[in-house]
Each structure stands twice: as C-alpha cells, then as structure tokens.
C-alpha cells in the first residue's frame, strides 16, 4: 500500500481537490451546511472561489463561466437549489460550452436545515444528469466524471451529496497532476443560448435526446458497480445508503448506482431478475424505488417510517428484515442555544417582553425560539421574515398587527431579504412595519463566512461593500436606525418601542460583531486598512 498517497479528506474537501485538479476556473456558491467547506477548501488550494449573495446568482455566474467555455462549479445546500432552480431548469435547455457542475449537499435528518427535501427529484424535474457519491473517494472521482459528462453532452451535471458524505472523512487516493482545460473563449450560438420560444422548443427536444443517449451510455458506465454475492438477496443502493447496506448485509449481491439519472434500467432489470429478492435501499424519498417500479421491475423498498431522517446500519438491518416496530430514541443531548454573550440576546429579550409577533429567518438567531425568549413565531426559508411579517401586518386586526416585526440576519438580508424590503416600500401595510436586521458582520451559522455586507471576499480580502442602512434608505424606508445592542443599555429597546409606535416603515439595524469571531473580524478590518499588508490594498487604490 502506498501510504504516502493516502489522504483523509471530507467529501467536501475531496470535491474541492478534484475541482482544483480538473482545472475548474471558477467556483461560486452561498454558504450552507453541509456544502460550505467545498469553496473554502477550493480557495485554500488556489482555486478561484467566491461567495455570491445567493445561490441563484452563484449558479448564474457559473453558467456564464461555462457559456464562456470554462469549467465551472456552483455549490449549495439542498434548499439553496430551490433558490437556484430558476436558472437550473433553463440551463438544462441551453446547455453549456465548457463544463458546469452543480453540487447539491442535502441534509437528511436536518442536522442544520429547515427541511429534508430530496434533491434527486430536481435531476428528474429539470432533466439533468446526476451523480451520487458514497464516500470521499467517490466524491473526488465523480467530480471528474461530472466534468467529462458535462463536456461530452454539453449539459449541466448535478453532483448530489448528503451530510454523511460531505462531512465524513474517508481515505482518498488522489490522481497526480492537474488538467489544463481549453482556454475560455466566447462562441456566439444564438439558437442554443437565447431561450425565446422559437429556440426553446427545439432546445427541449435536444435535451430529451441527450438524456436518452446518456441513459444508453449509463448501461455500461463504470460509475455503477455490480458486487456479486448471495443470490437470495439483491440490494440496489446509491450514495451513503450503499455503505450502510454493505455493512448491514455483507453477503448480499449489490448493484451500486453512482450515475442515478437517467437510470440504467436494463442493467437494473437484469440484476433484479438474477436475485430471489431485490430491495432498494435509499435515504429520503423513494426516488429509485418509484422509477424502477415504474419501469415494471419487481423490487421492494423501505417501510414509510424510514423515509424520515437518515439511514444508518441498524435501520438498514431493520428494513431488510421488515421490522416496523418503534425505534429507540436517539440519545437526548443538550440542545444548542444562543451563545452566552451573544449580542442578540438583548434583542430577543426585548421582543419577548413587548410580546411582539416575530416573523423570523434562517441563522443562529432562529435559536431565539428557545426558552427563555420564545421570541420567534415563524421560520420558513431564507429571507421569508420580511414577506411573512408584511403579510401578517396586512391581515391582522390593528392591536395584533402593530406588534408584528420581522427579524433577519445580515447575510440572510443580503441573500433574499432585500426584495422583501422593496415589497415593504411598494406595498406598505396601513400601520407600517418594523424590520430588524441583526448585523453581526458575518455569516455565523455556517461557520463565519464573508458576504457582500462585510466588504470582504471569501478570502477575507477587501472588496466592494453593500452598506445595509444605505440600501434601506435607497428603497425609500423613512425610519432607518443603527443601534449597538450592549448589555446594560436600553438603546435597542427604546428604538424598538418608538418604531412600533411610529406606525411608519422602519428598519432597525442591530450591529455588533459575532462574539465567536470578534477578534478575527477586527484583524480583517485592520488588514483592510492596509496596516499590516505589504502590497497595496485594492480598496485604497
């Protein structure tokens, strides 16, 4: 064994390393557990990586790079692909000139998410090819494969991973060297790239032809593996479920699918016919099961109770023996909470004491729902706080409406709260509204990434800065205040009370750095002020 060439990498790091070696010219994304480390690692390796304001913009930037003939990658968590789904469905029609890989990191079991949607459905809905790695080696290998498929069929490829692939560390034997892809170069192709109806109609037919070609190619594709075993039990599995299944039933015959859309149905039929009992082991939705059954192949799946949460070895054993008895509860641990010295505690304390109806959003501050505050009344998706708060204001009786506030973090506001603010200015509720932006100068929940409001890029270097209060004023919001929430100070509470009383449209920015990175943020700022850098600071030039 060559010990020198074994790396212990997370799935995210493996994707990043492969992207670097494959010559990916640009990686764009928005932070989201469990996808965040891909771009961070890609950047550390020397790749050009950037945080976009949201996943839709990230994918559009990557599409542009791929239209220009480059190899491009967009990364996001599963719910991020909802935001990016608009470009996804149409870039499937346009195709690309270079290569485009879209990494979707799903979170079955919702370790750090608001839902456990199964993004394999997107591959079917949008009509794009999909690869599902089961460990870091495959995450690494499949990134290269995704680029090959993308370039061969001129189509975006969905690389779909899950938490236990992204955040598990497994051994990777990397390839040597780096690819040198063709230089980016614009070639005009109006019919392919401009999706007016006259071009989109043939583009849709072209997409379906590509999919049927890929399905044929997939029948003998090395990304799927047949592991011969006992003929009494055959297992069809993909992604992390394959690993659990292999351990739960080491004797079984296994068809391990890596290229999971479009599916190699002849190979699946042949496998199912060769075993006495054929079971599909998959986490989340019965995506494989439904597709295989719809093709008339007799297979069984899992009882409905296993749709919820992650699979693991004991659950796969239960599925295989048809056990639907109640499962033991997971160890009851200490729940997370807002940090002891979190500046937002003052905010939630005030909201609680004034009995506010709080439309909340996505971030650490969602923990304001916990005791003692219990000061979040809704949490739907990124940016929803503003729109939901406005909707409540529009319909509730005045005594309730006047207590409604929206609360949103700085990064989330940039992501998709801005359009909510535009809505507020355009369709103001009769008694006004109060939006509180919790500006701690970082994307805290996902591990402290930069965003356009910090004025620093992914590498913490200075760049253009979106000033939140200026943006609010530019939208025409009459009351815009910036308050520093400090222990012992009632400045925030006073501002809140006055804003609620005013019945005007109001934005209160509660600005204080996240205590977990306050020191780092100060260092970045100093660097930005050119005190510690030898090279001229771009912001000062």
């Amino acid at each position, binding site marked *: 064994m060559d*010990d020198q060439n074994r790396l212990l990498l997370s799935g995210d790091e493996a994707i990043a390393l492969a992207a670097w070696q494959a010559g990916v010219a640009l990686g764009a994304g928005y932070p989201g557990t469990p996808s965040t480390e891909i771009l961070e690692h890609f950047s550390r390796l020397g790749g050009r990586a950037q945080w976009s304001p949201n996943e839709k913009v990230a994918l559009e930037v990557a599409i542009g790079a791929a239209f220009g003939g480059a190899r491009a990658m967009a990364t996001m968590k599963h719910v991020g692909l909802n935001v990016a789904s608009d470009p996804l469905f149409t870039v499937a029609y346009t195709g690309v000139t270079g290569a485009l890989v879209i990494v979707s990191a799903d979170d079955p079991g919702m370790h*750090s998410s608001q839902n456990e949607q199964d993004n394999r459905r997107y591959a079917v809905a949008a009509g794009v090819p999909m690869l599902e790695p089961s460990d870091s080696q495959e995450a690494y290998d499949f990134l290269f494969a995704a680029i090959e498929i993308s370039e061969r069929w001129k189509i975006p490829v969905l690389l779909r991973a899950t938490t236990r692939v992204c955040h*598990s560390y497994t051994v990777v034997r990397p390839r040597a060297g780096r690819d040198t892809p063709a230089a980016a170069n614009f070639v005009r192709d109006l019919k392919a790239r401009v999706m007016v109806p006259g071009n989109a109609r043939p583009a849709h037919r072209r997409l379906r032809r590509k999919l049927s070609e890929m399905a044929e190619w997939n029948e003998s594709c090395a990304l799927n593996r047949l592991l011969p075993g006992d003929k009494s039990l055959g297992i069809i599995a993909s992604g992390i479920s394959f690993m659990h299944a292999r351990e739960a039933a080491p004797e079984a015959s296994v068809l391990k699918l890596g290229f999971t859309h479009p599916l190699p149905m002849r190979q699946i039929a042949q496998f199912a016919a060769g075993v006495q009992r054929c079971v599909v082991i998959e986490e989340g939705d019965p995506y494989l099961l439904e597709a295989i059954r719809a093709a008339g192949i007799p297979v069984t799946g899992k009882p409905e109770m296993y749709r919820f949460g992650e699979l693991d*070895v004991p659950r796969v054993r239960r599925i295989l023996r048809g056990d639907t008895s109640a499962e033991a509860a997971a*160890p009851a641990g*200490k729940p997370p909470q807002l*940090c002891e010295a979190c500046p937002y505690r003052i905010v939630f304390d005030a909201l609680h004491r004034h009995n506010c109806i709080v439309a909340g959003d996505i971030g650490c501050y969602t923990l304001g729902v916990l005791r003692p505050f219990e000061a979040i009344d809704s949490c739907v998706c990124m940016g929803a706080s503003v729109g939901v708060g406005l909707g409540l204001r529009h319909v509730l009786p005045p005594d309730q409406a006047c207590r409604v506030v929206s609360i949103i973090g700085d990064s989330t506001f940039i992501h998709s709260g801005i359009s909510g603010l535009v809505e507020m200015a355009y369709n103001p509720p009769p008694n006004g509204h109060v939006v509180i932006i919790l500006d701690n100068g970082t994307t805290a929940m996902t591990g402290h990434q930069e965003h356009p409001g910090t004025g620093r890029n992914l590498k913490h270097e200075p760049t253009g800065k979106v000033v939140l209060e200026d943006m609010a004023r530019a939208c025409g919001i009459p009351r815009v205040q910036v308050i520093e929430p400090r222990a012992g100070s009632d400045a925030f509470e006073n501002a809140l009370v006055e804003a609620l009383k005013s019945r005007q449209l109001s934005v209160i920015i509660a600005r204080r750095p996240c205590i977990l990175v306050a020191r780092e943020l100060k260092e970045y700022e100093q660097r930005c002020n050119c005190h510690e850098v030898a090279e001229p600071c771009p912001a000062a030039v």
Partner: protein
Amino acid sequence: MNNAAIAMKSQNLARPPCNIVVAGLGGQGVLAATDIIAEVALRAGFDVKKSEIKGMSQRGGSVTCDVRFGAQIFSPMVPAGEADFLLALEAAELEPNRPLLRSGGVTIGPSAIDADKLPQKKTLNVALLGALSAYLPMAQQQWLDSIGLAFAPRFLEANRQAFLLGRASHNNSVHATPAA
C-alpha cells in the same frame, strides 16, 4: 503500514472495526480529539472513517463524533450498540450516550483524569485520548506524532503532557489489547 496495523489486520481481517464515539459539548474539542484518533489510525495503515455533525449543534449543544478504523470500513457512522469506546469530554454526556456502547464496551469520562494535574484545563480532550490510547494497538510515538500535527507549537507541550498524563492513568490497570 506499521507492525501494529499488520498484526491487527492479520488477526482481525474478518472482525468488526474498532468503533469510537467521542461526546461533549460544542467548543470542548470533540472534533479536535476525533481528528487525532483518525490521523493516528490513518498513519498506522488502517482504513479509517470519521463522521461529524457541524452547524447548529455547535452552538453549545451536545456534539458527538464517530471514528472507525480497521481493515475495511463501510458506514462512517458507528452503529448504536456497537461502540467499543465512548469518550466523554463532559460527564453529563456519558449516560445519554451509553446505549451506543456494545456490551463490554469501555467508557472514558473526565473522572479518568486528575484535573489538578492537567497542564491546562483545555487539554482535557487530549488527556482523555491518552487514556484511550492505552487500549489501542498504535504506538505511543504515533500518537505523539499526530498530536504534533494537530496543534500550533505554543500549545504543543501542554497537549503532549496531557496525553502522557492520560496514558499513564490507564497504563497501570489496562493491557493494551485491540478492541474487537
């Protein structure tokens, strides 16, 4: 591959992997401790998988991290009831996680270490690794090498001492046998 790994492989090829669960609260060094175990096992030539959960749980909540090593590892998660070792950085995390242990599995909690002898309070995680190391087939030097990679030079000596303190606390009472 070193001798310990070869010996373990030849004996244990058909045996299950060594399963370790590290439990604690966000910020206590659960991930760092698990990283070191995984690194030692990797350098000893084993197949290794480590699974961790990041994100919201890190805000002071309970954190557990799984590491498995052996001839060939499939699932990265230690199946409930199959952990050979439960390492708890917080005493209160021992009982809730006890169902993860197999029968005869070993628990190592903060009480295994004389806290007064720790060079720094924050080195408890590495001291517990010292206690764990006495049960595992990898050599002391391999642990120290991996600890050397894990910490900045200014924290290294304290962690080295903590590791040796933990290892000594168990060396007298335990025969170093690979878990099965």
